[in-house]
């Protein structure tokens, strides 16, 4: 029956579309062309700055300095990437950022899941109160100075944990996860599990978690990206250079224009070094952004779903 009506609906829809196509006025065809053109132009203008940076990173220093690069690499060379490899600060930053992203995201995902599960249970006594406690922090905070003083009182200053503990949980991701548990885990499963004598732990670990891989992918991506990209907390809490994440190193290179040229190993002549420093800016942007940009198309399907969940709830 259901299949039958669905097929009917489908055929009526296709028929409507066919009729629409016959009727489709010239105005609509013009509209489609204009619409597509605008979208193409818009997409190209979003893409262009990224393309320019990638092309410049593969061009020779002379071509970049002379402003010859527009769309494609000029005088193709890997010199820029050689400079990245030769500049130890970038690799220190890269491995540090990897550490913050992996450890931080693990802590984040665990904290979010163990908070979201009880808060998604309608039979939790005091649920509204707990939820309000979390929600209020989205509206109000003590501000920068008290948080800074707390981190220093806890003795976290100049330790890696300063980038992990203060951001162990994001309330926004918590809300998305709660919405996921509410909408995607059928409540009958809880009843059935309880009838079978399962405890809350068993329901959470054996039934809910195995069904949650898509939400774990979504919040994992959001958390990992925010760890990889974080700059402010590192600026605040980390003075020691060997703890710096990649973003702090990039700030020196890209924004402050501060590159220790002596570190650029075997390259002798000053003029050439200056060119290499310019190239380094482009290649370090690529090296820093590629991990994130590679990861995101794989989870894109999931995160659109995740945002929709958040939007439905939020």
């Amino acid at each position, binding site marked *: 029956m259901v299949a039958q009506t669905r097929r009917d609906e489908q055929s009526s829809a296709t028929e409507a579309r066919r009729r629409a196509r016959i009727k489709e006025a010239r105005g609509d065809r013009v509209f489609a062309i204009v619409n597509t053109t605008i979208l193409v132009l818009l997409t190209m203008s979003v893409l262009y700055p990224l393309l320019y940076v990638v092309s410049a990173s593969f061009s020779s220093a002379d071509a970049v300095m002379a402003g010859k690069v527009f769309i494609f690499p000029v005088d193709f060379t890997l010199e820029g990437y050689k400079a990245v490899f030769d500049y130890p600060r970038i690799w220190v930053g890269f491995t540090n950022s990897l550490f913050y992203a992996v450890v931080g995201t693990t802590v984040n995902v665990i904290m979010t899941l163990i908070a979201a599960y009880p808060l998604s249970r309608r039979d939790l006594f005091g649920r509204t109160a707990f939820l309000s406690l979390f929600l209020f922090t989205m509206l109000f905070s003590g501000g*920068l100075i008290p948080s800074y003083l707390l981190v220093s009182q806890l003795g976290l200053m100049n330790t890696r944990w300063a980038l992990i503990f203060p951001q162990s949980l994001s309330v926004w991701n918590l809300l998305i996860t709660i919405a996921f548990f509410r909408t995607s885990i059928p409540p009958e499963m809880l009843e059935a599990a309880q009838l079978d004598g399962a405890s809350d732990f068993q329901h959470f670990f054996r039934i809910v978690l195995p069904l949650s891989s898509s939400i774990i992918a979504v919040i994992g991506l959001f958390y990992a990206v925010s760890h990889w990209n974080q700059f402010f907390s590192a600026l605040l809490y980390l003075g020691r250079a060997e703890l710096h994440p990649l973003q702090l190193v990039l700030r020196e290179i890209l924004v402050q224009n501060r590159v220790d040229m002596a570190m650029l190993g075997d390259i002798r002549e000053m003029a050439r070094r200056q060119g290499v420093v310019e190239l380094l800016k482009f290649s370090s942007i690529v090296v820093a952004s590629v991990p994130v940009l590679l990861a995101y198309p794989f989870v894109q399907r999931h995160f659109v779903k995740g945002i929709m969940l958040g939007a439905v709830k939020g």
Partner: protein
Amino acid sequence: MVVREEHTGVTETTLPAAAPAKSAAPSRKFAYAWKRVRRGWQLYLLLALPLAWLFTFCYYPMYGAQIAFRRFLPGDTLWNAPWVGLAQFERFFQSHMFWTVIRNTVTISLYQLIVGFPFPIFLALSLNQVRRRWFSQSVQLITYAPYFISTVVIVGILIQILDMRRGPLNMALGLFGVGPIHFLAKPELFPSVYVWSGVWQNMGFNSVIYLAALTTIDPELHEAAVMDGASRLRRIWHIDVPGIMPVVITLLILNMGGILSIGFEKAFLLQNPLNLTTAEVISTYVYKVGIEGGFTNYSYAAAIGLLNSLVGLVMIVLARSISKALTGYDLW
């Protein structure tokens, strides 16, 4: 105290039976509540760590914000610094930077609201008209991408694109005979650089929520309109736009609530001595006064930060009641 079996073989079905206890005496009400708490002890155990984190890293700093009402000096511990009432706030109101940072913050956020807000809506409406899936998916893939790039890298790219001598934007302007413009050194251009680069970075990602809202519109409305011979533009105007209006209004009001909160990172990274007159916003000023200025200024910086948080809270609560009155939709 002897009965311990509650937390092993619990069934949900026993709950409704206990419901009449609501109307019973307070002691029985309490007993009922206690029973529910005991039954869910594993849930509370899971929640314990996140709650401990919440109190330490979110609520304790709110308590610590009281240093805004003290005068913290070298040699003091935080809790024995003398109370000074609202003196730190008065100092800010009388400071020559007060109007500068407020004006800069409000200018940038209003500009951002007016320019940045409509773009994702247009993008979503336009994408929704595309029939070929591969096309709309590639547009989405590309326009979402900048959202995932770090602020430091975004600013680094901006510096390169806007470069005076070899940046592509100035080269392109040169073709039209417009002399090279030092975008980052002109205070009057700072808000534009900030806002338009934000459009570039966030337009795609912010359109997701409108696309989601568009999928909830009943397709029969469109079919009926097609039968009546409505053109595509008319259908967008009379079906799609009204369909996403509640979401638009809600987000617009929420954004207006955040008008005093310009994030730290991008403003800070785009600042230089030449554009500082328009680039100094509240969050960067707090950082410079409090952290770079050293601990004699903690109280003063905390006062500015607290004021900012309080105004933000008031704005968002106001925004919520306006939104509730206008759309009938409660934000929380």
